[in-house]
């Protein structure tokens, strides 16, 4: 066959393909480009997630090829098919991709498959993976633009894509943590585990006193922190003139919230333990300090969300300030306040540091008979169990305790969400 003839034949064929309104071709180009880019991102992500270095020569060739392919595809879909104003962003992108393609093989393949060790190679390995993730996501999101003809829908689509990926990235560790705790812990949950006392350094028996201790601790905390928190929030939002003192108090609340929990624990050791001993009461007081800022903050937000016009409506029929707060402001704010409280207490449920010096013992506390007795608590129990790992066969119970603790904390969060959704007041 005549070489020239076949050449001009192909030329015509491609010309036809690249016509401005060749929708089918454009679509295929874009989809292929999206898929490839996503693949790049997935490989990058997988390498982070499974701590596998992707400097392997084969992978590098693969990635280089993919990168070049993407650039070519994009090049065509942008330049041939669409407006010039997108040219700038395209060129930047192509440059990045080409850089990547050349950059990949530059890495000497000296980091092999090994788990995270603290050395410089980790950094390089991470950089490579993250660049892959970013380039992949950007590539896919750019490729969506021609697919939607550069209308406003196209930026919508690419933004949607990037956000979805971001959410998935965030969800990933959550899924890994929860699933591993559930799968390892579920076998250890039994009637015996839930109802019996600790024995043999936690390798036998259960966590009943720890459950009781944690629940008592939380109840006591709510009992003290809730009224104090609501009271402070009402004072700050409804009574105090917006002056310097209020500002100072607010900053104080924020600082209190920022105090590391171990400092709370040491504070308790210094101030409460000498008076109340290592006891439920000391623990409750410390936990109240810990949760108070959260309760105050969320209560303030809840009060703030009640529109000023409702207060005015109440004053206008002759209500006093307190009547207004009691009957008009608090009822619609209550779901928000309770949600905040449950979240705050949920946080307290998982804390170890504040109680480890002030309220808990590992074994032998049983169920306390007075607030001056020491207690056992789930997070501290877990801490002690992990210390015995290796020395005693405690693994099963440790996982089960973790699962229990996680269920309590997640359960409280779920309750908070349900309250918020169910009793939300629309104004």
């Amino acid at each position, binding site marked *: 066959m005549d070489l020239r003839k076949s050449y001009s034949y192909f030329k015509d064929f491609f010309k036809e393909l690249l016509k401005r309104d060749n929708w089918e071709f454009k679509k295929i180009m874009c989809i292929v480009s999206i898929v490839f880019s996503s693949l790049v991102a997935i490989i990058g992500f997988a390498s982070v997630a499974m701590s596998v270095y992707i400097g392997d020569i084969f992978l590098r060739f693969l990635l280089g090829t993919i990168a070049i392919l993407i650039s070519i595809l994009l090049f065509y879909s942008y330049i041939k098919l669409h407006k010039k104003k997108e040219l700038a962003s395209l060129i930047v992108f192509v440059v990045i991709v080409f850089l990547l393609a050349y950059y990949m093989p530059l890495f000497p393949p000296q980091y092999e498959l090994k788990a995270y060790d603290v050395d410089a190679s980790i950094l390089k390995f991470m950089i490579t993976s993250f660049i892959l993730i970013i380039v992949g996501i950007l590539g896919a999101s750019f490729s969506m633009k021609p697919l939607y003809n550069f209308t406003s829908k196209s930026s919508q689509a690419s933004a949607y894509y990037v956000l979805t990926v971001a959410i998935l990235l965030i969800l990933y560790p959550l899924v890994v943590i929860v699933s591993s705790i559930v799968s390892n812990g579920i076998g250890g949950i039994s009637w015996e585990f839930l109802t019996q006392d600790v024995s043999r350094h936690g390798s036998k028996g259960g966590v009943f006193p720890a459950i009781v201790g944690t629940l008592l601790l939380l109840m006591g905390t709510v009992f003290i922190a809730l009224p104090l928190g609501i009271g402070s929030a009402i004072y700050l939002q409804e009574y105090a*003139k*917006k002056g310097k003192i209020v500002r100072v108090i607010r900053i104080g609340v924020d600082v209190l919230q920022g105090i590391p929990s171990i400092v709370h624990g040491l504070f308790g050791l210094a101030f409460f333990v000498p008076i109340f001993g290592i006891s439920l009461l000391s623990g409750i007081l410390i936990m109240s300090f810990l949760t108070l800022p959260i309760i105050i903050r969320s209560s303030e937000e809840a009060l703030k969300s009640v*529109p000023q*016009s*409702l*207060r*005015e*409506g*109440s*004053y*206008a*029929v*002759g*209500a*006093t300030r307190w*009547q207004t707060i009691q*009957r*008009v402001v608090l*009822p*619609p704010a209550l779901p928000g306040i309770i949600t905040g409280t449950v979240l705050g207490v949920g946080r307290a449920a998982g804390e170890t540091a504040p109680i480890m010096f002030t309220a808990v013992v590992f074994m032998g506390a049983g169920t306390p008979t007075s607030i001056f007795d020491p207690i056992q608590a789930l997070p501290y129990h877990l801490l002690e169990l992990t210390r015995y790992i290796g020395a005693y066969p405690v693994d099963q119970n440790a996982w089960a305790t973790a699962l229990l603790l996680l269920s309590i904390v997640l359960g409280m969060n779920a309750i908070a969400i349900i309250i918020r959704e169910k009793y939300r*007041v*629309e*104004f």
Partner: protein
Amino acid sequence: MTSKNKIKMDIRNLNLWYDKSQALYDITVPVLENKVTAIIGPSGCGKSTLIRCLNRMNDIINKCRIEGSVIMDDVDIYEKKTDVVEIRKKVGMVFQKPNPFPKSIYENIAYGCRIAGIRNKKKLDEIVENSLKEAALWDEVSDRLDDSAMGFSGGQQQRLCIARALAINPDVVLMDEPCSALDPIATAKIEELIRELVKNYTVVIVTHNMQQAARVSNYTAYMYLGKLIEYGGTKQIFENPKEESTENYITGRFG
């Protein structure tokens, strides 16, 4: 003004400052009993500020300072010994945006009475029914008294707020642009209502709508930049204003 027109509230030399900026300058104007007094003027001239002085609503605003007096039934409502709660029971208020409480229709109206210490269920039922009838809302909601007020239309909510103001049996009803969030039909209903109300109540209304002022009010006060420019019978203000500024505003040349 004829002699049978009794002055219900007498605003005398009222000056008001928000922090350091003065919003009202030496306002002196009467509010006549069983009449509708309209306050008109361009945006930001202090209409809301003035009407809120009549039930001391400005008390709840930080750094708001007031000088001068408002005499109601021979008592200066700004005197130290007057109880602001008592004033507000006598001077009801309806706001620009309907602001029903997120409670049932019944509770919205009974609220003021409960605050005032009325516990008798029968009495409350009676007051709720009467107020709703007065506010021309009874027919629409009589079978839904326990429904949340938030589920009603804007016009219905506004009439509910009027009913809520009437439930405590005030002498004066203040209305700050009560129709600005409503459609023409709901507006017509409320205007009709105002004409009814004035038989038993003294009404002060702020409005941006010239026709509305002309339709419902007996007396009109025109304000500009915190000052009272002109006050008189509505007919006179609209047909024969003394001040140029008033005429310009009414004929729509500015504001």
